[in-house]
């Protein structure tokens, strides 16, 4: 199985986008880099349409929340080139108040529900999404439960208080 090495992918991406992407110290195995929300669609389109790279499979799209960071809300794309059998991870970090990012549904239809799920749990607005509403939680919900400030359980519950050990 011919495998495109991470180095080749990295070279091609840096040659095309230069300083618009940031590459952290490379973790073994999976090539991972960051970009901004202005460039994300360009980066994804390039990865998908380039004749050599052919990252044609959107494996996963999800969110992550780092409350201490200046840009706390992250969107993580895992993209797979089935022909070359290599994966990349692309991350975009967004600001806290109404985080907005262009939708990837124009590139992959499969991004539709993944983005809805990410909106549901992290409150990330995907611009250009055809039907951005909650998918797993009830529509009446007002919070975004996977953000770190949202507790796992209602802290005001009294039925679980233990005399000796607290909660």
């Amino acid at each position, binding site marked *: 199985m011919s495998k495109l090495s991470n180095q080749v992918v990295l070279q091609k991406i840096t040659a095309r986008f230069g300083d618009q992407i940031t590459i952290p110290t490379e973790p073994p195995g999976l090539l991972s880099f960051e970009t901004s929300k202005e460039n994300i669609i360009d980066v994804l389109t390039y990865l998908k349409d380039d004749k050599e790279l052919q990252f044609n499979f959107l494996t996963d799209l999800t969110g*992550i929340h780092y409350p201490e960071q200046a840009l706390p809300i992250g969107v993580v794309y895992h993209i797979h080139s089935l022909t070359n059998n290599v994966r990349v991870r692309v991350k975009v970090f967004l600001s806290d108040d109404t985080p907005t990012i262009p939708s990837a549904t124009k590139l992959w239809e499969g991004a539709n529900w993944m983005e809805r799920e990410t909106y549901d749990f992290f409150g990330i607005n995907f611009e250009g999404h055809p039907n951005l509403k909650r998918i*797993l939680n*009830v529509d009446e919900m007002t919070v975004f439960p996977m953000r770190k400030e949202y507790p796992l359980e209602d802290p005001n519950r009294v039925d679980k208080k233990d005399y000796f050990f607290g909660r």
Partner: protein
Amino acid sequence: MNHNHPVYTDNDPQNETTTLNLGPTHPATHGVFQNVLEMDGERIVSGVSTIGYIHRAFEKIAEHRPYYQITPLTDRLNYCSSPINNMGWHTTVEKLLDIKIPKRVDYMRVIIMELARISDHLICNGILGVDTGAFSGFLYLMEEREHIYEIYEEICGARLTTNIGRIGGFERDFNDIAFAKIRRFLKKFPPILKEFEALFNRNRIFIDRTSGVAAVDPETALNYSWSGPILRATGVDYDVRLNEPYCSYEDFDFDIPVGTTGDIYDRFIVRNEEMWQSLRIIEQALKKIEKEPKGIFHADVPEFYLPPKEEVYNNMEALIYHFKIVMGEIDTPKKEVYHAVEGGNGELGFYLVSDGGRSPYRLHFRRPSFINYQMYAPMSKGMLLSDAILNMSSLNVIAGELDA
């Protein structure tokens, strides 16, 4: 054309559509699925899937649980093949911790995963038969699934939500009865699968109901991020076991069956063929295990592998490690891993972000059911309702995995 019923045309005054709630508890949907369909007679004009009825916030819960307590959560994703989920989770954590697993453990894992794949495909294909009106094939297969569950029971004590294994290996070795039961299954199952295939593969009624129905071309399937047997039925030979071997799958000789048209019939045939391949893999694994040193069932990683209880009570080191693991005293590396296994219905991925603590900072399940199912409503347009029911069965969507 049969004119026993009135034919509605565009200028017919009766030309109006009906809204039909298919689910969430309809017996033909095999799980908690709701689709609000707009029907024109028997034909579906449009549909909207509503999901989330059994959402249990596993990703949130996982952020508050130590690694070894997340295994039971993964059981409840795809409960038709929970050992695959368990092993997927263990291998993800092992990838994070960089643990080298002995070959014998890998082969044991392969056996249990392939058994799980068979039991998953048995249910899916059996139910597909029932939905076309052929009940007897299903009954043959359910008996065999029972035998697989007995093997699980022998290995871990549980049947459906198995919680097999630990981080680093298994909690105990497969005993002789378990091996005997696996061998017995390998002997007894092939004739039954053959009989099942004889009932269906060239059955006129079955072919009429399934062939050419809900056909999907590979471009659309890839565009919708499909994976697993339904993607392979369209002709794309993507299988995680082959592309990124885990658990020493590279040591095994097996084929990846692919279809051509991506219709329901192809999905059925691909699943049947995968069962044969799984049997091949299990046979090879049993042979390979005999060559490995006996009695090894976990890696030598005391700081992550929970010791057996007898050891904890009688041996100081074991007590210390038990305490350290349970109280989360052992640091984990600060990194992110994405690890995927070939689940019963597609690529089951775990995106695990560790901040060095005892529980994940973020854990995301790439659930194949969730991603495969989103094409269901769009592809049902113009389909007959009875075909749409078959289509849902053939997608092998499991509600627990869909809603996580």
